[in-house]
């Protein structure tokens, strides 16, 4: 997959630890939800669908938020591949 998501440790409170860099981050409930799906290798479409089903958002908003979030992950080097 070429990204670091597969190896990061993620707990239920949204604390992320990257064992390769030693960096840690916190994410909110939605971020945690997305990260778990990304870790499972879900596609952008599947994640957007899950977001609309779980949270009170329409498809466009979910898609926009997902793109934003994924960009953040790239910025922090947590996502390197182009899986989404």
């Amino acid at each position, binding site marked *: 997959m070429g990204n670091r998501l597969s190896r990061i440790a993620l707990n239920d409170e949204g604390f992320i*630890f990257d*064992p390769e*860099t030693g*960096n840690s981050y916190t994410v909110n409930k939605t971020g945690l939800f997305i990260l778990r799906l990304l870790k499972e290798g879900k596609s952008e479409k599947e994640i957007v669908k899950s977001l609309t089903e779980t949270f009170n958002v329409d498809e466009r908003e979910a898609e926009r938020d997902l793109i934003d979030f994924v960009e953040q992950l790239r910025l922090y080097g947590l996502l390197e591949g182009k899986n989404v």
Partner: protein
Amino acid sequence: MYRVAVSGINAVDNPGPGVGIAKGLKESSLNVSVYGLAYDAMEPGIYMKWLFEKSFVMPYPSAGEEPFIERLLYIKSNYGLDAVIPALDAELPLFIKSSSLLESYGVKTFLPTEEQFKLRGKDHLPKIAERIGVKVPETRIVTSYEELSKALEELGFPVMVKGIFYEAYKAFNISQATSYFNSIVSKWGYPVIVQQVISGEEMNLVGVGDGEGGHLGFLAIKKLWITSLGKTWTAVTVRNDKLFSLAESFVSNVKWRGAFELECMVSGSDVYLIEINPRFPAWVYFAAGVGVNLPERLLKAALDLDVERDWNYPAGKLYIRFTDDLITDISEFQQVVTTGES
């Protein structure tokens, strides 16, 4: 019972590694009595009786080999001494030079060769980096104002200005760089190292080379919080394959013998080697604390005992240093000052 002397017991704001080494030895499977080697009667380790059974004030290595070795042999003949683990850069050349002599008296060490020691010097970093195939920041070795300004012109700002043994400062302009240069020269002499600043994650690795191209274990950390002197205060264990292969390449190419610390900058997928220290770092107890007791392993190697080599420590273990205080009687201090030992 093995009697081992450890130096660097100055557990102050810029701590030596001695206390960490002693903690590792005390937690080892060996029955060890640790002696502290100090250069001042105020070094805190002297008063930490739960770690150092006895302590001795040493002559400065700069006073020459003879008084230094005599002092060690005094300890040997009066109290017994099986091994020494020196932990300060400035005393290493003397220990390396005298290792066979000490061995002939039954005092074991586990140190790099003189050639290896010189090779890891800050002024040789580009050479060793080429040999082990790793990137280093652009480095200039300067011994005059002319060379300094040439280096600054070539490297630009900010730039690191470093002493050959100690001290490193980040300079943002010519006047800062010149002032650091002057201050370093007055304290440590020439040459001064001028180095490109690499931005990224600072990661360090401690290990013990077996002298045959292998090693007795590694531990890699990322510093999370440092003091104003740049010393590690909190850190977390990491497992970074690029860092590990750099360290493996170092020990196998140089056949490093003894303790070492690699200071690196990890920038994306690049790893830069910033410095190689020829001894344990002050945070070495971290290794012992996560099950890779490097001080114990080094001692076993020095004593020709069987040594463990596993180093499968977990990432995400946290190291926290803290200050502490203790109360004792002035007579303790008095004894160290008047007799040179506690």
